[in-house]
């Protein structure tokens, strides 16, 4: 039996973005980049490990909005176009860099990856990579959990009980439709916790969720095992696992963590910022001048500390990846050894990461994860575990009340509520109230009115996504984020006003249903509360 356990939780989430016509929003590339840089390479690695019978247990949160986009036929076709444009650019890059052997080698490597991704996406997964995740889950290698339907920041919606339940109900329905399983774990977006959610999660038969450290430490009492064992939250019967801070630093910090190593590839320098628009093409440079990542990045992490950037050499990183994987495990084992003096059971170290850290930002991250899994496969002291398995193996009877918390700056709500984004909440709450009013005013509608009401419910949920205020605060793509909120609120209000006048604009409704086409089986009654 292991002396300590490790829970790897990888959050896969993006907000729902789908334009009416291809090439309208550069932001659609968020999804394409995620599939290309993270999900396909990660699935390739995990399938390889599975085929070789290397044991591993990873927990994945796949958000309902991401799952909806990954299974959307139009977005799947647009991903193939994305790959085609990158393959065409790759062929040009191989020619352009012919006189620079180091860069040429990289151009060929990227081109091969795009080609491999296209083969996997179409040939292996039939354009729906959720099947890849589903298969790994069936094989017992990964465990897929869910989160709020549109990734709302819970602390701001706690007093809107009906809306929170609508978010959870829709999340479970989407998850069940996509994976044919019922999720047992729940990811609180941004680890935003406020007292009371445990009772709601219990009502929906969830067993556990995750929190930030101060949820545990500033709660009703310090748990006897600190943050290294789950606790029962109040009398809800639902358990909370707490994230570990140090393991975040190793993986997420550019300055102190592994990804900043000189030999690793640098994320920020992409040829899309350096070459002419005509050469890059309209899939990289949009009509409004916005540029998106091309995926062709030639330098290593050197420019921050040296005058000249060095070209990235993938041949030099294998040893570094291995040593970083060994260092990660060494540090965790050292911690487990120390913790065993304090805890009454094998401690569990919870490492939640945004999945896109691996491959997208930290190019070598997936290889690092593979190296960690392989090292752990032959380690007697530390083992990967699913949260439910830890709960089954260890009685966790200690009950505490948790404290309001998130992983945001300052540990609370400032990233989602500040001068850049506070204007949205009065509108979002207003339509949330109005949605409840509609659900009660139209208790049993059918036909066209029902379609309109169901779509109103979709728009109300979409407006609540935490991503939009976050993006407004960060300053990246904030006009787009504002536009999205405005669009969802306006769409909702049009339906509300139409229904108040006893009419439905069928043509408009059909257009908007095609655009915001997620949650096909949504039932507006979920807002009744």
């Amino acid at each position, binding site marked *: 039996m292991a002396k300590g356990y490790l829970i790897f939780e990888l959050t896969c989430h*993006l907000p729902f973005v789908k334009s009416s016509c291809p090439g309208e929003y*550069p932001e659609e590339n968020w999804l394409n980049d*995620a599939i290309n840089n993270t999900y396909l390479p990660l699935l390739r690695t995990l399938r390889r490990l599975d085929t070789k019978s290397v044991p591993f247990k990873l927990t994945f949160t796949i958000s309902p909005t991401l799952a909806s986009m990954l299974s959307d036929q139009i977005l799947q076709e647009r991903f193939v176009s994305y790959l085609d444009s990158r393959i065409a650019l790759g062929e040009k890059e191989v020619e352009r860099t012919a006189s620079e052997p180091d860069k040429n080698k990289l151009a060929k490597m990227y081109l091969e990856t795009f080609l491999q991704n296209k083969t996997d996406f179409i040939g292996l997964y039939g354009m729906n990579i959720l099947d890849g995740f589903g298969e790994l889950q069936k094989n017992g290698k990964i465990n897929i959990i869910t989160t709020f339907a549109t990734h709302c920041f819970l*602390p701001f919606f706690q007093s809107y009980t009906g809306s929170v339940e609508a978010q959870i109900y829709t999340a479970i329905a989407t998850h069940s439709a996509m994976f044919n399983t019922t999720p047992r774990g729940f990811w609180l977006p941004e680890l935003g916790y406020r007292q009371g959610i445990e009772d709601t999660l219990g009502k929906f038969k969830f067993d556990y969720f995750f929190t*930030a450290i*101060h949820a545990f*430490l*500033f709660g009703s*009492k*310090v748990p006897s*095992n*600190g*943050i*290294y064992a789950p606790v029962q939250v109040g009398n809800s019967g639902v358990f909370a696992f707490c994230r570990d*801070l*140090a393991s*975040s*630093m190793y993986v*997420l*910090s*550019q300055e102190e*963590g592994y990804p900043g190593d000189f030999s690793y590839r640098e994320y920020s320098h992409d040829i*899309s910022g350096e070459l002419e628009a005509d050469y890059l093409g309209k899939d990289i440079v949009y009509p*409004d*001048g*916005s*540029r*998106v*990542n091309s995926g062709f990045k030639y330098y290593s992490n050197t420019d921050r500390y040296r005058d000249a950037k060095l070209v990235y050499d993938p041949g030099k990183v294998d040893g570094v990846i291995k040593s970083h994987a060994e260092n990660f495990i060494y540090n965790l084992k050292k*911690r487990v050894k120390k913790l065993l003096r*304090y805890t009454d059971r094998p401690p569990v170290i919870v490492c939640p*990461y*945004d999945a896109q850290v691996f491959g*997208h930002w930290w190019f070598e991250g997936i290889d690092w994860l593979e190296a960690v899994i392989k090292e752990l496969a032959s380690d007697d002291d530390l083992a990967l575990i699913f949260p439910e398995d830890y709960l089954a193996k260890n009685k966790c009877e200690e009950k505490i009340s948790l*404290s*309001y918390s*998130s*992983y*945001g*700056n*300052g*540990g*609370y*709500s*400032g*990233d989602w*509520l*500040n001068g850049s984004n506070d204007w949205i*909440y*009065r509108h979002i709450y*207003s339509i949330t109230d109005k949605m409840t009013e509609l659900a009660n005013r139209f208790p049993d509608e059918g036909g066209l009115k029902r379609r309109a009401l169901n779509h109103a419910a979709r728009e109300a949920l979409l407006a609540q996504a935490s*991503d939009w205020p976050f*993006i*407004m605060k*960060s300053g*990246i793509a*904030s006009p787009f984020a*504002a536009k999205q909120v*405005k669009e969802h609120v*306006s769409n909702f209000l049009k339906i509300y006003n139409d229904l108040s006048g006893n009419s439905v604009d069928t043509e408009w409704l059909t257009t908007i249903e095609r655009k915001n086409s997620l949650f096909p089986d949504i039932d507006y009654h979920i807002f009744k509360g």
Partner: protein
Amino acid sequence: MTKNRLQSLSDSELVSVAEQQGIINCEDMEREDLIDSIIDAFEESRLEKLEDDNWTIKSVCRKFDIFQDEEISFDKMSDISDHFNASKVEILLVNPLMAFVFWEYGDSAKEMAQKCSRHNHLLLRVHEKNLSDGKESFFDIPVKFEENKWYINLPSNGCQYYIDLVCHLASGDKVLATSNKIESPLKITRDIVSNESINRSDFLVLAGVYGFYDDDDGSGDNSQKIVSFLNTGSIREGD
């Protein structure tokens, strides 16, 4: 830099430090005011640094990379048409020290609110209830009719707050709307305050921050607010 250290500096050295911190008109300031301004500036830059140090937030930001020049203006946002038919006030917690309040007037309350505002009698009444001893109190913030949001300081931790939007009339107070309730979280661990048996080093190990804050300078992922209670002095030093 501590207050003692600043007090040991000469006037010209203080001015130099103040200039480095971007304090304007520092040459005309009284010595004590200058020292206070420098301490405030250091605190401000420390907090900015903490914000920049959140690895998790940075990692999420990288998913949304788009290179754009367009700037957003409030005109673009304000054209969402909606009619808020009822008076309403809502309070949201930003952090243990601050909350965001916004409000709307229903048609019937508008005229009264406008009239009260002219006489500075339109108020946000902030109710505070201490959750340990049950004591209740309130304070008022005068607001103008044209305003519809405020960020307010929360004076105490571990308290429940709610807001009344009030017209203060000669005939008595008229409450136009009452908000939801929020609680300001504690910034320290209850056990650390009350339980002498937990010492600092045990606590750091169990909190997973052992070795993180040796110099207590706030380096690292301070989103988790661990430093705040290490600096309270409430924790008994470990052996």
